[in-house]
């Protein structure tokens, strides 16, 4: 079910402001690709164009193409709603639905897809929560509100909710930046397990994290403040961290700026 993403000549605008310029890259299936770069360089903006979530922001638009295997996400007649059903997203701030129970949170996406059978739902809840390494902690309180969990548990609940609909790609925008180190490790372990089933893209400001979890790393940068963000280089994580091609990448990785 995991799919390859092919991005070509992508520009992203917020009204007249060009936030991201000329990105071309391939994201390999069943692998973890990390986006790193200084804040404000357009990582989140670019990530959101991979499931058309940028369209939620008034004035945001793209030029260029994003292919999910053979499907052009921006072709005429492609419904952003169906794109988001196959490309899931996990946000920086854990956002379980506060009035829903843990159980209902996990199946929220399935409900939208019209899945009704109690048995199917029960099964999906168990598989997804196990997939998100949360099952053992919550199996006795599935009917309790999701908001009662710790931050790290809430984030894993959000991951369970995202994978419950069996997406082809999972996008994660700094999923650990609001979490403590222990919860962060739990999420990193989880990302490692999930990549056997999904194509994963993870934005992180933490370079050790990128080094730990990703197979490939993309480095984004700003030419100058006020200029659009660009993809500087993308390659195997080993190579980007030990032997990058670009000087700017080496400077960023060795902590010389950013």
């Amino acid at each position: 079910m995991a799919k390859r993403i092919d991005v070509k000549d992508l520009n992203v605008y917020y009204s007249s402001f060009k936030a991201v310029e000329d990105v071309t890259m391939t994201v390999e299936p069943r692998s973890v690709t990390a986006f790193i770069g200084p804040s404000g360089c357009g990582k989140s903006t670019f990530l959101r164009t991979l499931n058309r979530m940028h369209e939620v922001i008034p004035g945001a638009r793209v030029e260029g193409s994003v292919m999910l295997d053979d499907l052009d996400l921006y072709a005429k007649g492609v419904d952003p709603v169906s794109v988001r059903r196959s490309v899931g997203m996990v946000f920086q701030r854990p956002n379980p639905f506060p009035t829903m129970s843990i159980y209902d949170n996990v199946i929220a996406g399935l409900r939208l897809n019209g899945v009704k059978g109690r048995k199917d739902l029960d099964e999906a809840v168990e598989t997804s929560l196990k997939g998100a390494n949360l099952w053992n902690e919550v199996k006795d309180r599935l009917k309790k509100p999701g908001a009662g969990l710790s931050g790290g548990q809430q984030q894993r609940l959000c991951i369970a909710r995202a994978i419950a609909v069996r997406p082809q790609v999972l996008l994660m925008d700094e999923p650990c930046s609001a979490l403590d180190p222990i919860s962060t490790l739990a999420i990193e372990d989880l990302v490692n397990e999930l990549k056997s089933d999904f194509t994963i893209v993870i934005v992180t400001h933490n370079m050790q994290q990128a080094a730990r979890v990703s197979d490939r790393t993309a480095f984004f940068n700003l030419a100058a403040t006020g200029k659009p963000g660009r993809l500087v280089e993308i390659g195997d994580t080993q190579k980007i961290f030990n032997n990058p091609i670009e000087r700017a990448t080496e400077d960023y990785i060795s902590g010389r700026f950013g």
Partner: protein
Amino acid sequence: MTTETEVAQVLRPANHRRQDQVFKALAIGASSVIVALVVLVAVFLVTQAYPALRQNTANFFTSRIFSIDTPPIMFGIADLLWATIVTSVIAVVIAVPLGVSIALFLSHYAPERLARPAAQLVALLAAVPSIIYGLWASQLVAPYYLPVQDFLEKVLGWIPLFSATNTSGGATLMFAGIVLAVMILPIITSLSREVFAQTPTFHEEAALALGATRWEMIRTAVLPFGKPGVISAAMLGLGRALGETIAVTIIISSLSDQNRQSFSLSFFNGGETFASRIANNAAEFDTPTKAGAYISAGLVLFVLTFVVNAIARVVIERRRAFSE
């Protein structure tokens, strides 16, 4: 050498503290005045009502009689309570779904260019004096309403609530309820719109990222978030409808004694609410007993609106605690 600025810096905190104290005193003073006023009103109502209630030979809550001109004094509020609650509940039942739909349209569908002026217009409508609504309804709208009532009588007449009565034209509880719905629609709409617009983006995005359509996003994120706000808006609207006087007085006709003899459940009956009964008879408050009888009715209305508003407040507070 101490310069003036240094002196000023030393003095400033003390100055601030004085300002704080003054403000605190003012705030405490103002809120005690309000509490005192409410208590005084309650005390006034109770002391004025008490002697009349002592003389009352009928059951105050269950009697439908209101005979206070000659002894034996008999009065009860059953009819008034019925008319008040029926008109207000009709108003809320119509205004809440309509107001919520308009609010959702303004907060989540309409383009910014349209939504902003429309929201201001709605807020403005809330300030239209109720006598204007009353005149508008009885003079302009009533003729258009009559066919609707006839139709409902024909189709639903077998249900006692919709059976035909002797009350003529638009002078019915139903029409009063509809006009009250129009009157409380602006407040319900603008309060609901405000809470809907406050739905945190990250809740909305949670739904959208799962592949929710806009309507599904509203159902999963916006409505649950806004529910306490809508409930309190409905309660505030209900409180208004319960106490609305002038528009209702203009619209519904009181029942003749003959028509009052048997109690009718029909929404197409006439009747009087607490407020319209009191307003209709204000000229008669010539003895303490007569005035006291009406004041007793007013007291019930006071308690009713007080309770409804209190419920609205509690819901708002609970929501505040919840959203933190």
